[in-house]
């Protein structure tokens, strides 16, 4: 694994095609609309949204870094600080909770030796509680947010979840 490229401008160099494609979706005088897709790009590039990353997105769109930065706090899928390589986000909202999601989350944490919101000692997995993910009929369930995007894992048991954490360890464990 290589360290994230945090040079200012890396985004524009590395994702020139993607950025152009994103900008093309919106009217020319409404580039601000592209801020959320660009924040995802930056987050995938840098792992989280640092002030420098915000400035980079702001520069691309001609916005103030504050206009860009305030979105990071508002939307839960953006992160302003580094955490585990993989975020395991367990839904414990009412419908899932009725089907044992809270106990599921507790067991997963116990097995990982952490509390909700914490990251495993190896820095790989951060376990978080989230609100409804529209997977209520397949509870317990969680989503995985990593550098490839966001993926659902549904109809889980503690065993299947732990098997997945092992898989994560195998994938990310060696750099």
């Amino acid at each position: 694994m290589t360290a994230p490229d945090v040079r200012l401008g890396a985004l524009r160099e590395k994702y020139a095609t993607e950025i152009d494609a994103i900008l093309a979706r919106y009217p020319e005088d409404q580039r601000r609309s592209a801020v959320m897709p660009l924040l995802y790009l930056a987050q995938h590039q840098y792992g989280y949204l640092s002030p420098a990353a915000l400035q980079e997105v702001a520069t691309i769109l001609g916005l103030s870094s504050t206009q860009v930065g305030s979105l990071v706090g508002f939307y839960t899928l953006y992160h302003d600080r580094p955490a585990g390589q993989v975020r395991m986000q367990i839904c414990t909202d009412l419908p899932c909770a009725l089907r044992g999601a809270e106990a599921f989350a507790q067991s997963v944490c116990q097995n990982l030796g952490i509390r909700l919101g914490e990251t495993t000692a190896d820095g790989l997995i951060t376990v978080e509680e989230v609100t409804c993910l529209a997977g209520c009929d397949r509870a317990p369930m969680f989503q995985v947010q990593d550098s490839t995007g966001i993926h659902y894992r549904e109809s889980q048991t503690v065993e299947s979840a732990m098997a997945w954490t092992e898989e994560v360890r195998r994938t990310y464990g060696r750099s």
Partner: protein
Amino acid sequence: MSDGEVRLTIDGRPVSVPGGTLIVDAAKRAGIDIPVFCYHPKMAPVGMCRMCLVEIGRPARDRVTGEVPLDSDGKPVLFYNVKLETACTTPVGEGWNVRVASEKALAGRKEVVEFLLTSHPLDCPICDKGGECPLQNLTMGHGPGKSRFVYDDKFHLDKRVPLGDLIVLDRERCIQCARCVRFQEEIAGDAVIGFYERGRQWEIVTFSEPGFDSYFSGNTTDICPVGALTTADFRFGARPWELNTAASICPHCPVGCNLTLNTRREAESGGREIIKRVMPRQNEAVNETWICDKGRFAHHFASSPTRLQRPLVRREGNLVEATWEEALSAAAEGLRSAGPGLRGIAGGRLSNEDLFAFRRTVEAVGGQAVLDTQMGGGDITRRFGLGRLGDLGQLGPGDAILVVATDLHEEAPIWWLRIKLAAERGAALVVANARSTRTDDFARHRVRYDYGQAVETVLGLAGATGMKDRSARADRDQAAGSALSHAGELVVFFGSEGLDYAGSTALAEACAALLVGTGHAGKPQSGLIGVWPSANDQGAWDMGLRPPADGILEYLRQAKAGYIAAADPLGDDPTLRPVIDALDFLVVHELFLTATAELADVVFPAQSFIEREGSLTSGEGRVQRYYPAVPPLGEARPDWWIAASLGARLGGKAAPVSAAAGMDEIASSVPAYAGVTYRALAEVHEQWPLVGGDDLYFGGTAYANRQGLGVKLASDVESGGAAEAPWPATTAPAPGAGLLLVPVLRLYDRGTTVLPSKLLETCRASHQIELNPEDATALHLADGGRVQIEWDGRVETCAAAVSSAVPVGAALVLRSSGLTLRTPARARLRAASGGTRP
């Protein structure tokens, strides 16, 4: 939008207002205060705080027949919504009945206050806002006596979060009304503060570098309805009820923002009364309820301990303290002997009364007096200036504004703000300059020219309107020219960027020609505005002073004796040293012992603007009066008194007894000022929005104007003067090889009236020149590297900043920032040691 008058009833009071008026404003006009936190009459309504909840009854209408059923009294039956409604977002309707003080509305607002207080710290006893706090006042008026929220469970947040050098946030006091965020976005055009998180965690943040990077940031503390935003200047400085107030006019730029100075005796200053804070005073035709941060924070010079306090007389080579009598007689003697060889220089920060007296004194012995500036055209602005009814706030669709050779954001921020708003209302803004500035951001047409081509550019715009001398540029600037010629009202701002005296004079003439050619000369809301380097340059021209045509050096070469007030020519240009040394005698009045004053034979301590009365004439041609706020410092006297007392000793008239009497003399000898009296300057009329009453929640803590809106002078053309503009001589760029050094202004400079404000230290323009990357590469210069500059026989070294905003072939020199340069000059640059690329 006026859909005609709408009649309604608010708490039993019949009200008639133009259609489209919001209920909250309609009530205000009728003398009924509907409580608000988020609503501000200068910003679009958002309905966030829900404090303005009222009951609204609307005439019921039969859905089938469309008829309005009547009750037994023959009045329409009113239908009341089950829910309370926000008065700040609802425009009035015909025949409505609004209940502000009903039981239901009161109960609703009581709940809103209780909600706000669940997380507010209630630390009023230590809060700067306490005493003038909307939340405090509305809690007393509308809140519950006791909160049902468990006080110990309140969560606590940071109480000292510096958003930048100037503004401090107390997070737990914030009630999330977003007034500050909206002000920065809607009015200031600097979206540099915003919200982070959401819900109960919602908090103000800035991500700009430096933090809260805006020239208007201080205004957010005025409109903040709680003590969440405070200025670093006033924070924990005083309680509002301890403050004395005095009306004033900002001395920093030609906008002439109306101020209220809040003062208090201060132990730190030995019990002297000093300025605790500078606040905006409402003048809707000038600054509305806003001021820039320079006006708000660069006041410390007036209270500086290094101010001159006693007259100084040169004895045995040294300046030593003397009595006024000694100093005046020494000065009179020295000046009298110079006779026609006396050369006076006055600065444009002096009042009209000062300048008038100064000129008369110099002329009493047959000498000459000039204004210390390189910008010409003040006689042209007198003739073609902004008309009697001129008000940038009234410009809108169909009108046009031309801004040429100036960076308004740096030179006159409130003009910048107001033309931004005019452009957003629909006025066509044309910006012509040699480089991009922030005025371009909202321009409809941007016209770029090379330094030296300003006059041709304006003539080109004029040519595009079908006037004579159609130039080659005309076609290119057709659209811009057409916007100007078709405008209902046309206001032209001209500055002196890249121009010397002759150039700026020619530019003023070209602008006048444009106004004449497009038929706007003499229209009551149109005209020409000079973006002068000093606050009262227009007044100085009106008082008969103008810059020396051949420059200060040539001017002083002919002098036997010098008389200098509020100017520091030597500080501005060290090469003047020999001619100043050669003077037989030099008299200076000043605030500080400047480089020039140090060489004087007599130095008089002058009062600063906060200690005295006076009047200034703004760039828009509005004469405005300022008042004494604190007792004089030491033995300092007003400049007009010093000049007139000297004049009396030199055989002139006796000194006037007061500034007001000085104005009477002006009014009787300067035609444009006929009829201007201190009494007239103090007249006020009601302004909208109503601010400064007990209801601080409506307009914020900006002060109501009770001390005078000033007198807007008519232009000569408007008063019947000839509307024929002199045709300008076009000017060529300064000849010679090398880069063109261009002095430009940054708001926070290092001038004597700014430097004493330590608060502005980190935002001050640094000692550097700015270059285009192309030129920097050719010179092997890196950003931040040292560069040696050689021009007019001078050699200086400073840092180079590389920026693509600088035109190729030019090097921008920040005025009053260390490198002294008054007019554009050709220079040879080379990388100094440490300046080359690695």
